[in-house]
């Protein structure tokens, strides 16, 4: 494999332009997400913008800086599927958080 590696090393690595592009893009996106706070957007708009920029940045870092875009699907899938467990956990904890808050407000403050 060492031989193989040497050969492939000399051949094609990615052009530097890609990295510079992504790099610039990350700065721009970070700036945008900062602006979300600067202009004090609130409510659903704030949330969707925060999440949008967050996932875009995360995606760019993963895809290009961490080379996932060039990796084979076997690796990509192994890495991404477990996230469904996290998504499920998040969704349920949102419901749980709301329920806890309701219980506290209802029985300790509002009453009825």
């Amino acid at each position, binding site marked *: 494999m060492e031989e193989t590696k040497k050969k492939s090393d000399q051949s094609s690595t990615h052009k530097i332009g890609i990295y510079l592009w992504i790099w610039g893009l990350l700065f721009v996106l970070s700036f945008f997400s900062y602006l979300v706070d600067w202009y004090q957007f609130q409510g659903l708009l704030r949330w969707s913008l925060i999440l949008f920029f967050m996932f875009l940045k995360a995606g760019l870092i993963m895809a290009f800086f961490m080379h996932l875009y060039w990796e084979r699907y076997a690796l990509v899938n192994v890495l991404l599927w477990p996230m469904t467990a996290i998504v499920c956990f998040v969704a349920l904890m949102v419901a749980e958080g709301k329920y806890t808050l309701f219980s506290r407000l209802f*029985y300790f*403050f509002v*009453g*009825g």
Partner: protein
Amino acid sequence: MHAGIIFFLVILGSVLFHIFTPWYWTDIASNWQGMDDTITLTFWVGGGVFVAVCLFMVYCVFRYSYKEGRKAEYKPEDKKLEKILTWATTLGVAALLAPGLIIWNQYVNVPKNALEVDVMAWQWGWQYRLPGEDGKLGTTKVTNINDENPFGINVDDPFGRDDILVQSDYINLENNKPVKILLRSVDVLHNWYVPQFRSKMDAVPGIVTFYWFEPNKVGEYEVLCAEYCGVGHYAMRGGVEVQSTEDYNQWLSEQETFQDLIAKQEKLEFENKKIVKNNNFILNKDIYKEE
């Protein structure tokens, strides 16, 4: 050969044990007959599978134990058989799940006419609060709890004034009247559990949890704490007495309300500070027995 016989005896023994066991559930005293029925159903289905699988295993042990030179069957897969087994199992599981979910739906939907009972737990004891004439419980706060206000009721809350306070481990309930148990803990997790009522729920500090049941048999029952709550867990018992409407109302009228308590407190001098129940760490079974 003898191995198969012993395994067979184990299966047979299990079945016989189940049939003749003197240890089985206590007589149910609430509306949750459905839970018992689902358990029975699960027993029939599950027990059947257990016996079938094990007997098949025993049969294989008898029939196919090692003989020099015999050829075992070479058949890596049988798609059809596997499919049949999968679907049969799925069906069986679904049949067990369905009643479970239906009863759970009843369990989390409390009837409108249920009497709300505030069960307050601490290490290691219980006390109870019933709504007064307005039919509503007042809001509470742990930080309000002190000698004058043992339940921590928010004094400003108009609903709280007429709440009936039962400062005892024992509570009376009215027969055939649904009860919504509102569980509250001031320190750690507890669980107000009466085996005869079949139902239980943890009391969690910081929130109020609930469940409901409808007692349908007059009698006295023991309350157990069913969530580990420290070293006195096993001694954290209480009692419920289910009474007919008349007896219950009689009992109810003897209880004091928050209003009464405040009035009484104002009269009392504070030189003899009452021992707060929470201080009671002494645990041994002799004390329990005295109770």
